[in-house]
């Protein structure tokens, strides 16, 4: 009898020790060869391919442009401490045609995903990361509507900032392709014009009809 109770206590103890709610190991599988790919996959370590005689370049060939993509921004990034190219970028025009209603919607969506987090859904520089100084971001994002500098910034210079970053803002070249960046600049310009009481027309609509149909159009 005594023996039995000792065993029971030990078993209960083992159960308590071994039971953790957190599953840190993925568990067993039928066929590891299938579950964990033998082939090279995305995010596998590509650093040693050359040693194995595999020719792999992880960057596109210099000078090539992806299908459907805009031509590269002609201005290079300034060297630290230099602003020559930043100033020169003022002269670059926006190569992307004015937005259609569908493109406007898409540009707005991209703005809300990538820019609104700091610059605010209303472009007022008060996104969730700033929240009037209550958010975690230490610097106030620019008010894209009221700021005297950004409000009148040429589109080329906006593109420079989106592509290479400016002050505490980082580069968005890896998140938005060139076309998306130019379209977002169109979107910001349209919003700025709207705030000043004017309206920039959408490409596929008569200027006068824009108010009512901008959102209603499918």
């Amino acid at each position: 009898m005594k023996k039995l109770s000792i065993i029971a206590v030990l078993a209960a103890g083992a159960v308590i020790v071994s039971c953790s709610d957190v599953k840190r190991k993925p568990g067993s599988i039928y066929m590891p060869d299938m579950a964990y790919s033998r082939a090279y996959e995305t995010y596998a370590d590509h650093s040693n391919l050359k040693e194995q005689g595999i020719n792999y370049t992880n960057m596109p060939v210099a000078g090539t442009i992806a299908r459907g993509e805009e031509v590269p921004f002609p201005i290079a990034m300034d060297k630290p401490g230099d602003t020559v190219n930043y100033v020169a970028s003022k002269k670059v025009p926006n190569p992307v045609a004015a937005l259609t209603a569908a493109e406007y919607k898409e540009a707005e969506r991209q703005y809300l995903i990538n820019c609104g987090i700091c610059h605010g859904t209303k472009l007022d520089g008060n996104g969730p990361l700033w929240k009037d100084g209550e958010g975690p971001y230490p610097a106030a994002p620019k008010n894209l509507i009221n700021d005297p500098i950004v409000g009148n910034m040429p589109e080329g210079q906006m593109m420079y900032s989106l592509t290479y970053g400016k002050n505490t803002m980082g580069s968005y070249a890896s998140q938005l392709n060139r076309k998306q960046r130019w379209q977002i600049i169109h979107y910001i310009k349209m919003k700025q014009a709207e705030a000043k009481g004017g309206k920039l027309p959408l490409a596929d609509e008569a200027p006068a009809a824009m108010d009512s149909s901008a959102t209603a159009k499918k």
Partner: protein
Amino acid sequence: MTTFRRISRILAAGIFFLSISFANKVTAQDGKALFNANCASCHKMDKDLTGPALMGVHDRWNNDKLLALWIKNWNKAVASGDAYAVKIKDWSPSSMTVFEGTLSDAQIDAILGYIKAWKPEAKPTAAAAGAPAEEGDNTLLFGILTLILAVISFTLLQVNASLKKMADEKAGEPVVEPVPFWRNKAYIATLTVILFCVGGYLTSKGAMALGRSKDYTPTQPIFYSHKVHAGANQVNCLYCHGGAEQGKHANIPSVNVCMNCHKAINEYVKGPKLYDEDGNEVDGTAEIQKLYKYAGFDPANAAAWDPSKAKPIEWVKIHNLPDHVYFNHSQHVKAGKVACQTCHGEIQKMDEVKQFSDLSMGWCINCHRETKVQFKDNGFYSIYEKYHNDLKSGKIDSTKGITVEKIGGTECQKCHY
């Protein structure tokens, strides 16, 4: 208010004499608003950003008039030949915005008053939030209780048998030598049945669990809390995982995407305390330091950072599909308009991400049978003309709609080829 008036009086003396009437209208509250609107993009009180930290700026200049002149147009302050102005000119390669014509003297006074009056907030004490309450696991309690009851009943049965034997002896009835319990057929039969049931249940459960990693919560190289980023700070999923609507993989963000924000956010102080799944407290600021190590970023010398030298962070993959299954994120996110949370659970509430769905075939098929395709205003499905017409004419019940199964979502070759 009183300190402000004193400062404004000192500053307003002399050249700014005329502006006193304005100054009286501008309050300290305006100083904060003006600071946030005009200065906060580059300056913080207690931290260097694009511009230097401003706490104690009055003492450093020791010349309020010149400081105001610097704010209006720093070129003029440098031209005045003041040693400090010349020195501070080279603080950073980027030069300060000229506020001449944008800010009035009274407004500059208000901003300076706000800067002078600003004091760092007292750090909240550690006792603010205790560890999350331990959740009682009732299963274990019930298990122990069952075990104890089983032992007691077993003991009582034995006692009963002994008592019966003693009673029989006393009554003088013939005593049958009792069969010891390990040879008692009734016991053995009961035990066999129990073992069969328990063993069968565990075997089939274990076999079904093979290859499914539901609730898998690996320890990641950096304690990245989706609860803080996607929950509290409302960063959109697609900000970091933009590939989810562009291709097969929902990409893992490269270090430069982290650094978009973390170049400036170098401490975790404003959110609630962080705990990992085991209940250990995590220091958010130390985790950001880990990111800096990968990025090769030195917060003290931010301008010198070279993003191309960053090393990738080797995150542990959680959701894994075997090679014989094809899955494409963009098909589901972009064409199907399925929310991330449908398959990944409420990521925005997870400190450590765990696998929410078991990713079994039954789970996939079930969803394909039940989910209605978002036909409306969706160019991707415009080729299904017959279905569109049937929906319009009422031949197909529009409340039931078209399920993924109806457009071939359960064909073998859709996912296995």
